[in-house]
Structures are given as structure tokens and as C-alpha cells.
């Protein structure tokens, strides 16, 4: 009996354990969701859209260097463009950008990052747009779709600016632009480059759709969200780049209507908060979503407490500084008399050579030390480890000086709309009066507040032509905010750092370059990763450096 019992027991054991249940092999991730749930309703699509907003500024796992979207790309648009300079080699950040060896190198991670980041945003927008087909139209859906279209237009526009020649001085019907991506799906076959004209056409179609969908909607929760006004701003940028000045002026006017320019105090408060009245589009960064040393202010700020900021004082090109009127308070965010602590001054002049042995701004050590102390108190929370240099940029300041707290990131503000409108009006011809009126509003807003009041802004004071005056105002107003490279491309400006404090043996090929219309070195190289994986891709002409 016992024997049989044993066998029965074994049989039960074997039968009951042989084979798992049908769903044993179905595992579901807990770190992620499937697109079918993420894109299943306008509510969920809004969440996917929020992910894109974060990707505009947040550290990204797309790239092994963990760059933070525009937090990294906007500074890249300054370091090679001659207004925002570094006084010392310091740490290696953006060195290759300064020397023009990164955007000219197809294998550079900078090139790949720009390309990949923008196409990732485009792909993410496509997922939303294409999932919405057949959905019932609601205000929320419109708002989600409007923003997705706006992203798609904005990103394609950024790409075509950087990777192709500007249509104003090239044949846009033959010049190769970038692939226009409207669908991202299997088999993921790489697309060929569209002509510049076609890329612009798509940008315009998309941004108009965005404006239509967003106009009249106001579900915005934060300034990362794109509104009708922001979409108009993007449209103005696209039209201005293309040379469609009538449209540019119109869009810019719509974008800025009803918004105020910031005050003197606000301008000098450090460009660190989305709460600034001028900010139309920007990111609020919270403490537990910090970008650490991939923050916008790490790259661009003065008193962010990173090794780059401490050891690499960033300065304004003094030729630009000298054109800022003394009555213009924007002059105050550049410290032309900053004591120079990058030099070991020989105050005692022990070597008997009396030339240049002391800081020219501070003839005695006592005065120098006092200046250093007061600067440390004012900007650096009394920390002494920050290097200082004349013409240092004090425009971007941490709310709490000498910390590594993340600050907000600015994508678009009202002044730019004034500048676009003014420029576009002036360039139309015959509208100088209107242009003067627009630029004067901005000019007057930047006149130092004093008792008695200073004279009003005079568009002719510098003796420049109207268009040059507007462009100069633009350089001053938007200094460091990531526009300069685009502007130089658009306006076909040559690069020449002569007369600035830039060291030619540091800047090397980034010291002097012919204008973009005759110089392919301005073109970003198509990234090697794209060339490798996309049989239809054509490289840009190799740079000659």
C-alpha cells in the first residue's frame, strides 16, 4: 500500500509541476508604457507631449553624453559665433565649438546630438499627430495636436538652418535641405534630403496648422507649453529666415500683442525665472529634475558653481560692448572693469619692468583686492574660487549665487518679437517709419531709469542705417540667448574676432571666417551616424579648415 501511495504522490508531483500557465511568459515593464496606452486618448497624448516639453531642456538618455536639449544647443549657437567669448581656455567645454572643429566634423557628438535631438522631437510629434487620426476633435485634442505641429515646424526649421544654406543666398529649389519626416514607422528606411524650399514649405504648413489649432485655446499650465502666441513667434522666425518679411512682421506682431517688455530691474535680475513677464516659451526646472552639469546655466551663467564657470570666465566681445550706449542699462550686465584674476600680477614689479604689471583698472593692490572682495560679495556669495576677467558677462545669474541649483531655461521672449517685427518691416522697404516705431518701443524700454529722466532712445544716435541699428539692437538684446549663430547665417555675416579679447591661438579657425554664402565651413556636417545608416543621405561638402 505504502508503495502505491509513494507512486501516486510522485505522479501528482510530476503532473502538477510540468508546464507553467499560459501567461507565464507575458512580462510587462514597470519602467515604461506601450504606445497603445501612451497615445490612446487626448489626455494620454498630453502626457506624451509633456515628455517632449521636458526633452527641450532636460538631460536626455538619447545620447551617451546626456546633453540637455536646448540647454546645450543654445550655448553651442553662441560659442562659435563671436559675441559670447571665453577669456581663458579653462575646461574643455565648447572648446571645439570655439575652434570650429565640432560642427565641421561629421563624427562629432555635437553634430549628432543636434540632429538626433531635433529628429527625436519630430518623431515624437509624428507619433502624436498620426495617432490622432480618426479621433473625435475636442479642445484638448486640438491643443495637443497644435503643439505637436508647432514642434514639428520648429525642429525642421532649426535643422534646415544649421545643415543647409539659407534660401536668401542660395537656390532654394536645388539646395539640399534635410529629410522631412512626417511618419516614423517600420521599416525605418532613411529618407533623402528634401530641397530647402520643400523643407520651408512643410514648416509653413505645420506652423499654420498649429496656429489654427491653438488659437482660442488656453489650457496652458506652464510656459513649456506652446500657445498660439508662441506658434506665431515660431512662424515669425521661419518667415524671417526665409526672407518672407511681410509674413514675419505680421506673425511677430500677433505674437507680441498684449505682452509687456521687462523692466530694468527685471533685466538685471539674471534671466533665471520663467516668471519674467517677457518669457513666452521657457522651462521651469525643479530641484529633483536638475540637469546637474548639463544645465543651461552651467554653460552660459556666470556664478553657477561648476568648474567650467569658476575657471572659464565668459566675456562679451568688446567691440560689441563698446557700441552699447552708456544710457542703455543693458551695458550693466557686462562688467568691463572686472578685476582680472586670470593673471598673476606683479604688483611689486620685482622684475623691474613697469609695463603691465598691475591690472590697468586698479593701479594698486589694495584697490584691486577691494574690487575683488566686493565682486565676490555681489556675485559669488563671497566664494573666492571664481576667476574674473574684464568684460565678463553678468547677464545670466543664479538666483542663489554660487550654487548649482538649476535655473529656468528661456526659449522665446517678447523682445525678440519686437526685433523681428522691426527688422521685417525695415527690410520690406518703405516701412521705415513703422520699423522705427517698433524698435523705439524696445529702445525706450532699455534706457536707464534715472532722475531726471534720460533722453529717449534715438534710432539714429549711433549713425547706423536703420537695418544695421535694428540688427545691433538684436545682438545686444538677445546676447547669449542662443540666437547669434542663426543670425549670422541668416544675415550672411562674416566672423572676425579682431579687436576683441579673444586669443587667436586659442580660437584658431574660429577666429576669422568668411561669410556663409561663400564659405561651406558654416554648414553643420550631416552626422556620420546618419550617413552610415541612411543609404539615401548625402553629406555636406567637407569643411576646409
Amino acid at each position, binding site marked *: 500500500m505504502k508503495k502505491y501511495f509513494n*507512486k501516486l504522490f510522485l505522479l501528482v*508531483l*510530476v503532473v502538477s*509541476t*510540468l*508546464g507553467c500557465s499560459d501567461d*507565464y*511568459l*507575458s512580462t510587462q*515593464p514597470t*519602467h*515604461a508604457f506601450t*504606445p497603445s496606452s501612451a497615445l490612446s486618448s487626448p489626455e494620454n497624448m498630453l*502626457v*506624451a*507631449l*509633456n515628455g517632449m*516639453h*521636458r526633452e527641450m531642456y532636460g538631460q536626455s538618455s*538619447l545620447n551617451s553624453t546626456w546633453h540637455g536639449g536646448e540647454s546645450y544647443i543654445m550655448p553651442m549657437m553662441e560659442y562659435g559665433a563671436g559675441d559670447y567669448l571665453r577669456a581663458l581656455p579653462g575646461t*574643455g567645454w565648447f572648446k571645439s565649438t570655439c575652434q570650429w*572643429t565640432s560642427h565641421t566634423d561629421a*563624427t562629432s557628438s555635437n553634430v*549628432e546630438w543636434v540632429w*538626433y535631438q531635433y*529628429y*527625436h*522631437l519630430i*518623431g*515624437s510629434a509624428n*507619433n502624436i499627430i498620426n495617432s490622432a487620426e480618426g479621433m473625435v476633435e475636442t479642445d484638448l485634442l486640438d491643443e495637443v495636436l497644435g503643439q505637436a505641429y508647432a514642434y514639428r515646424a520648429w525642429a525642421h526649421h532649426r535643422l534646415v538652418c544649421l545643415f543647409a544654406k539659407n534660401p536668401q543666398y542660395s537656390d532654394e529649389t536645388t539646395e539640399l535641405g*534635410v529629410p522631412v*519626416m512626417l511618419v*516614423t514607422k*517600420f521599416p*525605418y528606411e*532613411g529618407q533623402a534630403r528634401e530641397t530647402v524650399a520643400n523643407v520651408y514649405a512643410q514648416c509653413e504648413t505645420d506652423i499654420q496648422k498649429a496656429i489654427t489649432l491653438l488659437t482660442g485655446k488656453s489650457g496652458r499650465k*506652464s510656459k513649456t507649453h506652446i500657445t498660439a502666441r508662441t506658434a506665431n513667434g515660431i512662424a515669425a522666425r521661419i518667415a524671417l529666415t526665409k526672407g518672407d518679411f511681410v509674413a514675419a512682421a505680421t506673425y511677430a506682431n500677433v505674437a507680441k500683442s498684449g505682452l509687456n517688455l521687462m523692466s530694468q530691474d527685471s533685466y538685471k535680475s539674471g534671466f533665471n525665472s520663467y516668471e519674467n513677464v517677457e518669457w513666452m516659451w521657457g*522651462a521651469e526646472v525643479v*530641484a*529633483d*529634475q*536638475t540637469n546637474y552639469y548639463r544645465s543651461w546655466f552651467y554653460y552660459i551663467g556666470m556664478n553657477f558653481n561648476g*568648474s567650467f564657470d*569658476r*575657471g572659464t570666465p565668459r566675456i562679451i566681445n568688446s567691440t560689441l560692448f563698446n557700441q552699447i550706449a552708456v544710457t542703455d542699462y543693458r551695458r550693466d550686465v557686462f562688467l568691463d572693469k572686472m578685476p582680472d584674476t586670470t593673471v*598673476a600680477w606683479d604688483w611689486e614689479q620685482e622684475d623691474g619692468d613697469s609695463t603691465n604689471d598691475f591690472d590697468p583698472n586698479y593701479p594698486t593692490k589694495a584697490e584691486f583686492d577691494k574690487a575683488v572682495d566686493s565682486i565676490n560679495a555681489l556675485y559669488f556669495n563671497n566664494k573666492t574660487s571664481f576667476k574674473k576677467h574684464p568684460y565678463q558677462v553678468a547677464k545670466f545669474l543664479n538666483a542663489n549665487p554660487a*550654487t*548649482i541649483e538649476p535655473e529656468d531655461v528661456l526659449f522665446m521672449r517678447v523682445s525678440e518679437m519686437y526685433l523681428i517685427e522691426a527688422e521685417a518691416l525695415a527690410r520690406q522697404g518703405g516701412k521705415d517709419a513703422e520699423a522705427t516705431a517698433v524698435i523705439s518701443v524696445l529702445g525706450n524700454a532699455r534706457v536707464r531709469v534715472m532722475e531726471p529722466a534720460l533722453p529717449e532712445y534715438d534710432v539714429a544716435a549711433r549713425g547706423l542705417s536703420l537695418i544695421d541699428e535694428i540688427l545691433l539692437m538684436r545682438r545686444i538684446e538677445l546676447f547669449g540667448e542662443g540666437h547669434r549663430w542663426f543670425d549670422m547665417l541668416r544675415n550672411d555675416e562674416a566672423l572676425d574676432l579682431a579687436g576683441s579679447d579673444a586669443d*587667436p*591661438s586659442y580660437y584658431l579657425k574660429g577666429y576669422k571666417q568668411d561669410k556663409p554664402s561663400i564659405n561651406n565651413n558654416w554648414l553643420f556636417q550631416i552626422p556620420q551616424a*546618419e550617413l*552610415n*545608416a*541612411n*543609404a539615401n*543621405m548625402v553629406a555636406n561638402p*567637407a*569643411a*576646409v579648415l
Partner: protein
Amino acid sequence: MKKNLFSMLILCLIGLQSVLAQSREVSGVVTSADDGLSIPGVSVIIKGTTIGTTTDFDGKYTISVPEDGKILVFSFVGMKTAELPVNSNTIDLVMESESIGMDEVMVVAFGTAKKESFTGSAGVVGAEKLEERTLSSVGQALEGSTTGVQVASTSGQPGSAPAIRIRGFGTLNGDASPLYIVDGSQYEGSLADISPEDIASMTILKDASSTALYGSRAANGVILITTKRGKKNQGKVKIDFKAVTGVVSQAIPHYETVGAKDYYELMYQSYKNSLIHGADVDPTIAAQTAATGIFGKLGYNPFNVANDQIVDANGVINPDAKVIAQGLDWYDPIEQTGYRQNYNLSASGGGEKHDYFFSMGYLDETGYVTNSDFERINTRMNVNATPKKWLKLGTNMSWSFTKKGLASTTDGNSSFGNPFRFARYMGPIYPVYQINPTTGEYILDPAGKKQYDHGSGYDEHGIGSRPTNVDRHIVAELDYNFNETKTNIISNRSYAEFNIIEGLKVSTNVGIDVQNYHQKDFENKIIGDGAPDGRYNETRYTQTALNWNQLINYNTKFGEDHSVEVLLGHESYDLNYTYMYGMKSKSTVTGINEFDNFVTPTSLDGATYEKKSEGYFARLKYNFQNKYYFEGSFRRDGSSVFHPDVRWGNFYSVGATWRMDQEAFIQNLTWIDQLKFRVSYGEVGNDRIGTSRGNYYGYQALYEPHPNALESGLRWSSVGNDKLTWESNNAFDVALEYTVLNNRLHGAVEFYHKISEDLLYNMPLSPSMGLNSQPRNIATLYNQGFEISLGGTVIDTEDFKWNIDLQASTVKNEITAIPDPFDSGSKRWAKGHSVYDYYLYDYYGVDAATGDALYHKWEKDAEGNTHKMYDENGDPVLTTNEQDSEKGYTGDSSIPDLFGSISNTLKYKDFQLSFMFTYAIGGKILDYNYRDLMHEGEYGEALHVDAKKAWKQAGDITNTPRLQSGNTHIAPTSDRWLTDASYLSLKNVNLSYTFPKSKIKDLGINSLKVFASGENLFMLTKREGLNPQEAFSGTTSNVYLPSRVVSFGVNVSF
């Protein structure tokens, strides 16, 4: 039989009569070399006579030897017969087991097999081999142990495990590591968590026939690790104790770099050329500017001459210049002599119905780099019982705790926090501590201590800033930071086996590994990424692997000639990984590495990842007359990595063995002892897409959480692939194994051809797709090779014995189908090429007139293949901008032509010396470290001595281009950095002395051995500093170089 016995008795009586006349009494003890225990029942016979006896219960014997009796013959089943001269009244013997014979039983998939019958290809590393090594992780013991196995010592960090490849590179995704099975269950922990002292054997299964039962997980070979168990020992408890202590140093020297004077001269060149070629400055002015200005670029003057007089306008160092600066060596303060101590104690035994093994061990190793160490405490208990005839039960429980300090923290190859990068590339003019620029002496703080020079300048001392690593300081950061990883692993294997009827067994086996990991990482507030507030992060995870199988085993015989063995089974596997990571910044006080001590949370993540598989399998073995063996296996596997429609795959193998030595025509050839021919074919699979956990959900497209400030958000993170399915590995293997010349020579010749189809790979998509990879089944490749092993006894005298084992293997790897060829780093994957064929720019040489680097242009044809360009005169078309060219196959690969090992064991009386060389011949290494030391002239970065050959003026004939800061075309990645990867390495030496029984038996000791051993003693390579074994891909990076361990130890058993 009866008759024989009778005649023996008669003979004995005759013999006894003569003994009575003149004889002497000889006695002694016979013990086993395996465990030092006495062996009862050994037959002891006087050679040439029939006089004999057997050993008693305690292994003792006494025999009367007549006058003419010269030699005693000892024999016992399973042991080597020994003949000893009668030269004293006490003759003890340590008997050795017959280990090399084909009767050996080996551990195979789901069971054991006699080596004679085995139809697959496998290598075995036994405990006796492991004993000769001083290893923290048994992985290192695989190197040189068996043919076809390649080992890359990725990191020398104490407690790290090497990477292993068995028979080539059968996958593209970088996860071609073999499957580890510990005591029957898949093991997911680190090999360093298992004490090598606990291991009884490791079996390396190389071909499909031997691995097919592991189906889906077996494509890259299987390593079976079997831990020790107790032996039946009549109730006696055997105690073993081993203590080892040693010193740890760096096994491979540093690259040769230039000193301060050469450095200044070379940097002068770099500056001058950057002015001439980079900023269009007149050469004469450039020479002047560089002479007076080079100090300004480099920032530090370690000499006793003025800053503007270090180098003259001709670029020659001031003849009066002497280096006065102290402490310019950055390796010195981060290196130390490491120490290693290791103790192991075990007790084991067994009776008729049970056996047990218990062990405990302690290991403490500090690395040769500060802050790197490894500590392990481990215990094991293995108990087996047979309470009933029909029931067998057992459990094997191990626990280990490890603590690890990491020198390189979490930083990668190019990070500031990587000590190897930092020290290697720091220019030779920068002091570690602040020094007075005039006197070169240390500037001490009020307490009289040296102060770190952060490289960002000290105005008060007239110290400028470094152009490199500003505000970073690896010595200070290693000093102030804290990094510690603790793990504890509980591992259990339990089984129950039921004998239903004779030959039919049913068993169930459960394996569970629970690994708890806890890493603490503090970065200080003074310098580095933690500045200015200090920050702290913790990573914790628990990984639970549950492996459960049910087996039915049946074997039977039909008549005399036919025997059959059948196995049916089911297995499930569940890997669950759950982690949490957090970071806070702003430390309150220093020295407390806990979250409570920090103020602002900056990060908090966590998730669970799970991977499951399930399989049904069967195996049939048949043998005829112990001469012809056939074996077939089948397994059907499902994996959670694939879509439900395609997740099940079928795998199988067939194999046959012909024991030729059993044939009459061979048995007549007396010089042949054993001869075996075997052949097998099988198909196994692989479901590992890559190494990251996210790949567990390979087929699913995903969105990951990515909140935007306070709003929830999701980011598009993977595209998925519903059609993704099994990678299949189809292998053919044929071999001849032999033992000849009265067991003096043995070996094997093997050939394999392994086709890997539907290779899994995270295929790069063009970045314009918005995501740049998709898991796909993309290609087909094969690996094939010959493997030759030859072992022999060179000298075999009574006192002296010398055994040599030679191994040589080849691997040929070739992609046979790939829809779209693509570049993968320095390689390109295309039909007709191996996965490790270099695809690079072609460095042509130096333009003697300008010093430019010249590249021979490649151009692409319509098919996408590249060819070198020649002009109409047949001259190469050259360019100074490598990016103006395509890349091309250089004709080189990182795979060696031949690799293997040479092992020697020499025994002289009670001394034994064993040593092993490993070698590789052929193959190229792309030496990125060398490239980075031969840079274009970056201010502040160290230069290799070869940079002294750089072009300086028109007409210079050299192969090293001019130095020019900022010119990225001088030293980009190209075939210029390919270096012969051949090496010869003395991996291990062990010298031991075993005390004779007679001297220790009064101490109550069974055996006593003292030994000295060394690991990684030297390596011959093409370039000093090069580690050709760093990575299979043949590239080098800034990693922890292998450690050399020299140690002494004692091994005693009671």
C-alpha cells in the same frame, strides 16, 4: 575460479616457507592524494611473487618481505597502481587517482557522463588546478584551461570578473558571454561571489551537442560549476584549512611618456605650428611668440629659469633649465602596494546514507590603486541524504557577503573622475601639490601638510592655472570621496529524487539566487562633481533568479550489448530585478554617508525588470557494446523577450562517438591506449538582445516616464519589434581524442563550424528616425576553428616527473549575410568580413614639406564598397583632411591567428612546480590609449615618447606628423594606431612542498603543504603599456590594468 584460489593457496604456502627462512617485516599507511585520508582494502603484493596482503580499516598494512623481495606493488580500483622499492621497514604511500583516463566521470547538462561516452566537446577544470591559483574569481582560471576559450581581462579591479568567449564571437550584440550553471541552475550573480575554494570542478561545454539541453540560453557555450560535497568516510570528519597571503601590484607597466624638458620642446612645436598653420602667423614671428609664450599656454614652469626663457626661438630647451618642481608624478600618490589575505576552512564527511560539506572563507584584497579593495565572507553547506531506497534529498546553501571599493567609481573612459585617464594624460610639468614656482618646494599649510593644487590658480602664490583638468584633481577626489558597494547573495540548490523502479528516476530541482546590492557614493564639496555642496547617491537592487526543473530519467539495457538512457524534462526560469536609485545634494556634515545627512533631493528612480523563459526537453542516449554511442537532444523554449506569436523556438542536437580502441584491429596496436572519434551537430538559441535590462522587453515599443516639472510626462524611448525572434546557433563539431604510448601522450584534435543565424542586434537606425536603434534579427555569420591539445609526460622517473600540456586554437569569424552593412565603431559589418575587421581611414604618412598628416583617400563604388583612389599616373590620391575620405578595410582584425597556452607541472620528490603561459599570435589592436598620448599637441596633456619623432622642419622624413594644437587632422582614429596584438604572458606560477606523511603523522595531521604562487607575472607585448587582452574588439581604454599577485600559503588537513 575455485581452482585458481586453490593453486594460489598452495603457492602462498610455498612462499611462506621461504619467508620463514629469511624475511623482514615491512609496514606502512596508504592514503589518498585527493583528500589525505587512509584507504582501506588496498592490495599490497611483493612483485614477482604471490605474497600479499591488504590494508586494514585505517589504511595500515604489515607484510613479511623475503630476502629477494625488492618491490612492493600497491593497487586499488580507481587509483593508479604504484610500485615502491623495499628500502626501509616503513613504506607509506600516497595513492593518486586515475584522473587522466577516459573512465572519468564529468558533469554535463542535467547529469553526469563518462568521458568515454560523451559525444560533445568540453573541457574540465578540476579542484586540483584551481588550488594552484590565487584567484578571487574563478573566471581567470578558465584562461588557458581548455582550447577555444578566450579571456579578456576587462578590469583588474579587485573582485572583478573577466569576459569569456567560447569558440569565437557568435553574436553581434556584445553579450556573447557564456551561460553559467552553478550546481544545475542558471547563475546570475558575479563569479567573484563564489569562493574558488568551494568549487569541485568547472566544465566548459563548447559545442551544440553538449549544450543543446540548455536550448535558448546556450548559444555562446555553457560553463557548469559544481561545488564541493562530502565524501563517504566511515563517519570521520575531514577538516581542511588553507591560508594565503600576498602582495598586489600592477601587472602591466605604464606607457612611456616624455619628461618635462622634452614636453616643453614638443609643446613649443605645437604652439608654433598652431600659429603658422592655424592662425596664419609668419613663421619667424611664430617661433618667437612660441618661445616666449609657451609658458602662457602651459601655465606651469617646473624649471629654474624664467618663464619666457624656457625654450629658445629654435625650440631648444634652455641649457640651464633644471627641473626643480617637486611631485610631478601623478601615478605615485594614487598607487600603493596592495595586500591580499584569504582563509578557508571546511569540514566534510559522509556515511552510507548521507554526506555533508561545510565551508567558510574570508578574503580581503586591496588593489594597487588607492580606494580599490574587495572583501568577501562566504559560507556553504551542502547536505545530501538517502533516507529511503527510493528517495534522495539534498540541499546546497551558500551565502556570501562582499564589499568593494571602486577606484574608478562610476566614471567611464573619458571622465574626469577616472584615475587611470587622469594620471595617464596629465602633462609632466604639473605638480600634485601646490609648490612655490620659484623654489619648487611644497607650500605647506599651517599644520605643515602638503596642499593639493587644483590647477585653477593661486594668485597669492603666483601659481597660474593648468590648461587641462582645471579644478579637478584625482588624488584629492580619491582622498575625499567615498564609494562602497556591498552585496550579499543567498544561493540555494535543493532537489528531491525518487527511484520509482529500477532505472526510472524522477527528480525536481529548485535553484534560487537572491542578490542584494547596495552602493553608496559620496562626492565631496571641495573639488569635483560634488562641489560646491557635496552630493550623495545610493543604488540598491534585489535580483531574484528562480530556476525550477522537473526531470524523468530512465535507463535500461537490452541484452548484453544495448543500453539506453532517456531524459524528459521541463524547466522554468524567472529573473526579477528591482532597483532604486536616489541622489541628494548639500551635505550637512562630512563623514556621514547617509541620505539624512543631505538636504536637497535631486533624483529618485526605481523600477522592476523581469525576464522569464520556459522549456520542455528530452534526451536519448544509446550505446552498443560500449563501442558506438549515439545521443540526441531536443528542447522547445519560450522567452518573454519575444512577441507571443514568435516566442517559442525548437532546438536540437545529435551526436555520435566511436570508441575505436574497443575495436579488435586497434586493440592489437599496443601503443594505442585509447582512441575516440566523435561528431556532433546541433542548433541552440539566444534571446539576449543586449546587456541592458530594458532589452528584456525587446519586442515592445515603449514610452518612459519623463515628468515636466510638476506635470506627468512620457518620452518615446523604444520602437520595439513584433517580429523579433530567436537567434539560432548551428554548430558542427568533429574530433579525435587519443591516449598513446602507455599513457605517456594524450590529446585531441577538433574542428568546429558554427553558424549563427538571425543574429539579434540593436540595429542602428538613422537618427532622423527619431530613435536610433531597433532590435532586429539582422545577419548570419560563422565561426570555425581548429583546436589542438597535446599533453604528455616528458620525464617520468621515481623522483622527478615533468608534464606538459600544450593548447592551440584558431578562430575564423565571417559574416555571410547582412542586408545593410553598417559601421560599428572602428569596425564595419559586411558580408565576407569578420565582426572584428577594422574599417578605418588610411594613414599614409607625413608630408615632408609641411609636416601634415596625409591620408590615402578611399572612395565608394556603386555597391558601397570602398577602394583606395589612384590618379591617372597610378599615384595615390592623398588628403590632409581624413574626413574628405571614406573609410576602408585595413585587412586587419582583432582576432588572433592562433592562441592557447603552455602548462607545465614538474614534480621532484615532494616539491611541485607548475606554471602556465598563455599566448596569442597575430591580430591587431587599435591602441586608443597610444593615440591619445600621441595627440596633436593639446596643451597640458602628456605625450608618448614617440612624439619626439614628430616632424619639425621642411625635409624631415618621419612617420609622425607635426604637432599642432587644435588641428584635429593630425591624430584622428586611423590605421596609424593599429599595433600587433601578439603576446606571451606568464599567467601563473605555483611552487609547493608537501610534507612527507612520516614527518607529520605524529602531529595528527593528514597532510600539510606550503606553497608560493604568482599571477600575471609578466607579459611580452609589442608596446610597453599595452594590454592586448583588454577587449575582444581590440581597442584600449582607460581601465584598471590587471593586477599581479604574489602570495604564500599553507594548506593543512586533519
